[in-house]
């Protein structure tokens, strides 16, 4: 099956490496980054592209754009892995809309379009008889969407709680373990590359809230936006507060919570018993879903990273191939 990729940053490179190393039956026929592109209907030599990106910072020829890639039509699935824009979702929203309109499947790791335009994009996909999949937008490598939609099909999901942001979880782990102050722990997270230069989205709970919006709209059809989430971040936390929690044999984690029946969507630091299954360490993510038939299920795994996100993207691509492409 042929795939075209928009975005060739850490996630894009992770996908390209996996496709070239593993025998997945996938052929990359087009790639565009923000400044260049390459299109070859017979399949691109991915090792060349990775090497060129590493040495020149460009994946292909300057002047070939994302729009050119979309219009080339030499692909079955468009893999959209450009950076998230949580305000307008552009330019990713435009790319995804074009590809779906042209009757191509789309797999994305981009939270913006899915959080802001879920209903419209899904309607478009259905009308063109193609798939839009977005496993990588929530909890990186954890197959959460797949578990909720397919593994737990037929269950009523009554509640969902989880650690959705690895950066915050790392900061809280370090504040607890080493008694670091919030700003010291944040600085350390930045040095290790776990936090962005502008950590606002992570530490203020916005990133976690966007993931709740995606789940609320896609799993329960609640039709909510970021404004509907009650958000408190971890930037006001003190080392003393963590020590006080410790006295109760507890700790503090940034928890995202959805109770669909009460329309509760909330991101806030919460006190949890230290042996609670959501108390995971470092940059891990964890999600517990409560269901009527299956009871409680907890998934724990890596929420970010090049290869980890590639895992979710590739699973979506192969799902589309196995369920929709090869059958037709």
């Amino acid at each position: 099956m042929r795939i075209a990729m928009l975005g060739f940053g850490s996630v894009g490179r992770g996908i390209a490496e996996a496709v070239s190393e593993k025998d997945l039956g996938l052929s990359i026929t087009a790639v565009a980054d923000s400044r260049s592109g390459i299109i070859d209907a017979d399949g691109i030599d991915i090792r060349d592209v990775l090497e060129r990106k590493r040495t020149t910072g460009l994946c292909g020829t300057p002047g070939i754009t994302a729009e050119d890639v979309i219009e080339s039509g030499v692909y079955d699935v468009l893999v959209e892995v450009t950076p998230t824009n949580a305000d307008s979702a552009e330019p990713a929203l435009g790319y995804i809309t074009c590809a779906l309109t042209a009757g191509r499947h789309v797999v994305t790791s981009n939270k913006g379009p899915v959080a802001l335009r879920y209903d419209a994009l899904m309607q478009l996909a259905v009308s063109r008889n193609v798939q839009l999949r977005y496993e990588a937008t929530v909890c990186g490598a954890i197959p959460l969407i797949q578990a909720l939609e397919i593994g737990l099909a037929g269950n009523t999901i009554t509640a969902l709680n989880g650690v959705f942001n690895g950066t915050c979880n790392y900061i809280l782990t370090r504040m607890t373990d080493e008694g670091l102050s919030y700003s010291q722990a944040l600085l350390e997270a930045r040095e290790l590359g776990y936090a962005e230069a502008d950590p606002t989205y992570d530490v203020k709970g916005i990133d976690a809230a966007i993931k709740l919006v995606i789940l609320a709209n896609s799993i329960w059809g609640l039709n909510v936006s970021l404004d509907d989430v009650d958000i408190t971040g971890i930037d006001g936390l003190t080392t003393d507060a963590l020590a006080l929690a410790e006295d109760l044999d507890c700790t503090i984690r940034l928890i995202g919570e959805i109770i669909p029946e009460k329309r509760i969507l909330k991101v806030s630091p919460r006190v949890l018993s230290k042996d609670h299954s959501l108390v995971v360490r470092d940059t891990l993510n964890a999600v517990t879903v409560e269901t009527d038939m299956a009871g409680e299920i907890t998934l724990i795994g890596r929420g970010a990273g090049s290869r980890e996100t590639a895992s979710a993207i590739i699973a979506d691509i192969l799902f589309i191939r196995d369920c929709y492409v090869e059958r037709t």
Partner: protein
Amino acid sequence: MKLEMKDKPGQLIAALKPISDLGGNIMAIIHQRDPSAAPGDTIDVQIMLDLPGSTLEPLVETLTAQGVNVVRIGEERLLIRRSVILIGHIMHTDLTDTVDRIDSSGLAEVAELGMVMPAINEPSSAKITLKSSSQEEIGRAIDLLRRVAREKDLLVIEPLEEYP
């Protein structure tokens, strides 16, 4: 609580079993048999017990259904506790008032308060434990604390789940 039941074999056991079924703990049983009582008369039994939150009503219903008359329910002690953590200028936003507003609500009482003040002008952190007689009331007391905290610009960190 004081119970009244028929004076016949097996009645006391029948009255005590629902207590353990609901996870309660019987602390004392006082029963003085009246030697002049005739078969078929009723006897009085006083029981002191510790019940998990919100199980008093179902217990009374079960007992009544079994023909045991609940004559009197004694003082209900506050057994449900919940701790939250506060961060902010806790002292300078009138801590006495914060505590008073919980205590005077009739929903819960502040049972414990531990505070750490790192330096002047830096936010303090406190662990505050509320006690109440029911889950419902303690929930409403936490709602009240949340409103007071919002007024005073304090951050409330609540437990994800109720724990003892």
